């Protein structure tokens, strides 16, 4: 049904991918996205969800029922048709209505962690675990922040054995590049593990590499640092409560001609509230390692 445009791109269709960059306030999401791509703001004007009603202070706002949320949005073009879209999403629970949509069909996610406020990463980690979206944890090495072994952070965050945790410097392009490579390798590896791919396993062992090296870069740690983590009171148990995507739709099938409806492919995953997220997003099977209790 396409009336093919004369856009010079020939027959190669644009292949866009979504990658979520999650993390608490001030963890360096903007810096990370900016280190590897041009950052542009992307606004959403959304209805307030049940979850946010308790959180957002509406005193004096009267009947305000929508809220404007800006997220960082980076676009990374590779070759003629591959485009990676990086979405820096606010890490607080009340923004999950955006996450539900963004994580639908996403390639994977990076949880950017700050060792000084590791607790801020819990909601993100929980979310992706529940959602079944492949993710890695990138520990942003801020100047002056205590340096931990990636392995310590893995234990502190109670990560599954296969979730890569790496150190990074969100200001450095090469480091951010390594973060993205680690993520894609992880996605590929979990795909192979699921038997849905045919490729030989390249790199499941990447887990504790340190792309930053031990060079403790000096310089401005980014202005984000100044912000205090005032609205990050959400810790693990918060994960249960509010995911009431108010966007009824987000996952509606594309009007494509191919007629292949989105299929909630595997039913192996335990039924959890998130797998019935809008439109029945496919939930990859690998989750639920033994001994990992989710919130």
């Amino acid at each position, binding site marked *: 049904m396409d009336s093919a445009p004369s856009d010079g791109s020939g027959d190669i269709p644009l292949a866009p991918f979504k990658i979520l960059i999650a993390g608490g306030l001030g963890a360096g999401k903007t810096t990370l996205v900016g280190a590897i791509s041009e950052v542009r703001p992307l606004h959403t*004007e959304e209805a307030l969800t049940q979850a946010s009603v308790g959180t957002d202070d509406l005193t004096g706002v009267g009947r305000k029922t929508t809220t404007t949320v800006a997220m960082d949005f980076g676009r990374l073009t590779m070759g003629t048709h591959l485009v990676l879209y990086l979405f820096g999403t606010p890490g607080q629970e009340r923004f999950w209505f955006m996450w539900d949509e963004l994580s639908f069909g996403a390639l994977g996610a990076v949880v950017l962690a700050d060792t000084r406020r590791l607790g801020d990463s819990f909601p993100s980690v929980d979310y992706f675990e529940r959602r079944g979206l492949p993710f890695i944890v990138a520990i942003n090495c801020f100047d002056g922040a205590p340096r931990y072994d990636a392995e310590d952070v893995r234990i502190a965050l109670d990560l599954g054995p296969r979730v890569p945790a790496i150190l990074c410097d969100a200001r450095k392009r090469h480091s951010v590049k390594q973060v993205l490579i680690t993520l894609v390798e992880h996605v590929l590896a979990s795909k192979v593990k699921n038997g849905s791919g045919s490729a030989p396993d390249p790199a499941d062992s990447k887990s504790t590499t340190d792309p930053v090296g031990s060079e403790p870069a000096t310089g401005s740690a980014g202005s984000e640092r100044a912000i205090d983590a005032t609205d990050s009171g959400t810790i693990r148990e918060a994960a249960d409560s509010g995911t009431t995507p108010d966007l009824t739709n987000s996952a509606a099938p594309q009007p*494509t001609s191919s007629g292949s409806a989105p299929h909630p492919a595997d039913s192996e995953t335990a039924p959890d509230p998130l797998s019935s997220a809008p439109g029945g997003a496919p939930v990859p099977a690998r989750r639920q390692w033994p001994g990992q209790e989710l919130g």
Partner: protein
Amino acid sequence: MPTGDKWVDRNAGPVVRPYALTGGRTEPASGAVLDVITVIVATTWAQETDDWLDLSPEHRRILGLCRRPVTVADVASTTALPLGVVRVLLADLIMQGRITARAGRPVGEEPSAALLKEVLHGLRAL
């Protein structure tokens, strides 16, 4: 972000509330909601023979951007319109036959291992 206590220009927020641009509609007319990375492109008809007189300035602007394949996120970011608004306007244009959501990998479908490797190579080559 507002600096000091004066909110001027864009800092003060849009002069017109976003959904005024859609006539108050918050749901796409077609009922189908486009994903942020759905690729859209103007139809040949819209590009070559259509006259845009019946379109609002926002519709025109969006249609102009769709001369080449773009994603919903691209459109929202370039026009600085909220995603929800862009979706409503895009749905209008789709129903008018002026743009199409382009066939490709359906957004909800897992990418193949081959495609992932291509991404990996692309990243390494950056």
